[in-house]
């Protein structure tokens, strides 16, 4: 049981270092879309929310799960959609001129 925890910690640590390497390459110009895009990724919690909502463990789980799916999905869809909207503005410039 403790092995899974340790395994998780290993993955978490390595992914953190990877994240630092990736994010340091993002230019300042794109920091706002970076943030909203990263935000959408953190909406991955929706996976956990779906497991809770659909697990069939009584009404408490269903209610909490439903709320979690709604919040997670707003995070995911809102985050990706608004990031796309911003990035389009950065992209269309050179061609428009």
């Amino acid at each position, binding site marked *: 049981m403790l092995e899974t*925890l340790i395994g998780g910690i290993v993955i*978490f640590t390595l*992914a*953190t270092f*990877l*994240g630092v390497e*990736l*994010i340091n*390459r993002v*230019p*300042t*110009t*794109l*920091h*706002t*879309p*970076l943030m*909203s895009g*990263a*935000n*959408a*990724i*953190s*909406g*991955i*919690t*929706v*996976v*956990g929310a*779906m497991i*809770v*909502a*659909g*697990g*069939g*463990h009584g009404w*408490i*789980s*269903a209610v*909490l*799960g*439903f709320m*979690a*799916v*709604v919040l*997670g999905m*707003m*995070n995911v*869809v*809102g*985050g*990706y959609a*608004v990031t796309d*909207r*911003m*990035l389009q503005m*950065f992209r269309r*410039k*050179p061609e428009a*001129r």
Partner: protein
Amino acid sequence: MPGALAEILYLVAAVCFIIGLKRLSSPGTAVNGNRLSAMGMLIAMVVTLVDRGIVTYSVIAAGLVVGSALGLWMARAVKMTAMPQMVALLNGFGGGASLLVGGAEFLKSELIGQNLGLDTSITIQLSLLIGAVTLTGSIVAFAKLQELLPGRPITFPGLQVLNATIFLAIVALSIYQVATPESLLWPFYAVCALALLLGVLLVIPIGGADMPVVISLLNSYSGIAAAMTGFVIRNDVLIISGALVGSSGIILSQIMCRAMNRSLTNVLFGAFGGGAAAVTSGKSAEGLTVRQVSAEDAAVQLGYARSVIVVPGYGLAVAQAQHLVRELADQIEKRGGEVKYAIHPVAGRMPGHMNVLLAEANVPYEKLFDMDAVNGEFDRADVALVIGANDVVNPAARTDSGSPIYGMPILNADHARSVIVLKRGMGSGFAGIENELFYNPRTAMLFGDAKASLGKLVTELKALA
């Protein structure tokens, strides 16, 4: 679907997130990267639906429809100036989802009388704590940015002691819960309530000017909360994505802090920009005079300038004058001048905010330069046009060790051959400090609303033969 295949598809989703973030390193590939990342999310969700022992789909479907509709509506409706609020709110939703998932997993074990393992028990507690702090902290940040709450720091004596006490109480209750074999309800509710309260108390003493740091930090928390949920439900893709987002938030907070020459501790606990911290610096403006300029004269100056550097500040966005700035730049360029934009990291209300606002006004991103790239060029610039910016061009940051912003990296607008400052009046900036730049003999002040002044400049430039 066999378990191994599901694991591999989760890994594919994680790789999509990683490559998606990598492609954000250039505006050309970024759109594509974001969509790849969204694709990864879709894969992870479909795998979960098929593989994770889900028995009832109706609740999930309802949640997906409602959440997607609300999310899409928000993303479409939000104004670019309101982007910091939007991101704050989205952070809060992510945190809220983590709190709910952790809570539901706990209540399930309590209901069916199952003993949680030590590891799950610990990570549930962390999921609750981080999720709840992110949720309420983000809501307060949202309210401050939306001006539903006053932007100045709200603080009272003993607040930090209270926060520390609450935090220790949460830790003690969590340890008690984890150490007890069966799942107890009262410490669970107490931890949730205290953590929700802590989120409010942590953000409420932070001033509006420091919100960029707070949003970045909460962004990081929402990632860590997702990772903790990953530990609870034993899912690696959550741990990986959570860690990626966690590190991104930390890096952005550091960049913001460096740009203000403040430590993270000072931002979080310093209650800057109000109360006792806002005493004016040693230098006073008495005996100094400012030189006013008319729109006509300023237009002539701009019309004959070979090189102009625009320094936009948040005042520009407040006046909704981004489009006029671009028109002005077009006029100058038509007359053969060169226009660049110097963007201070804290020019907007969140990292990169000013760049987005200018991009919305069709300013090509090749003309936007960050501080390090552009500071050397002020020495060769004919005119530095400062619009609605104040503290980020205050030379006191270089020279006056008594000034609250001493040591903060600034844009060298005062190195330009001449400086035109568009400003509403002689009020001081966020930090409440006099700005020597305005009294510089080479500086001319054009008073008035930024939008009105820019409109006049554009008209005058057009009239200039």
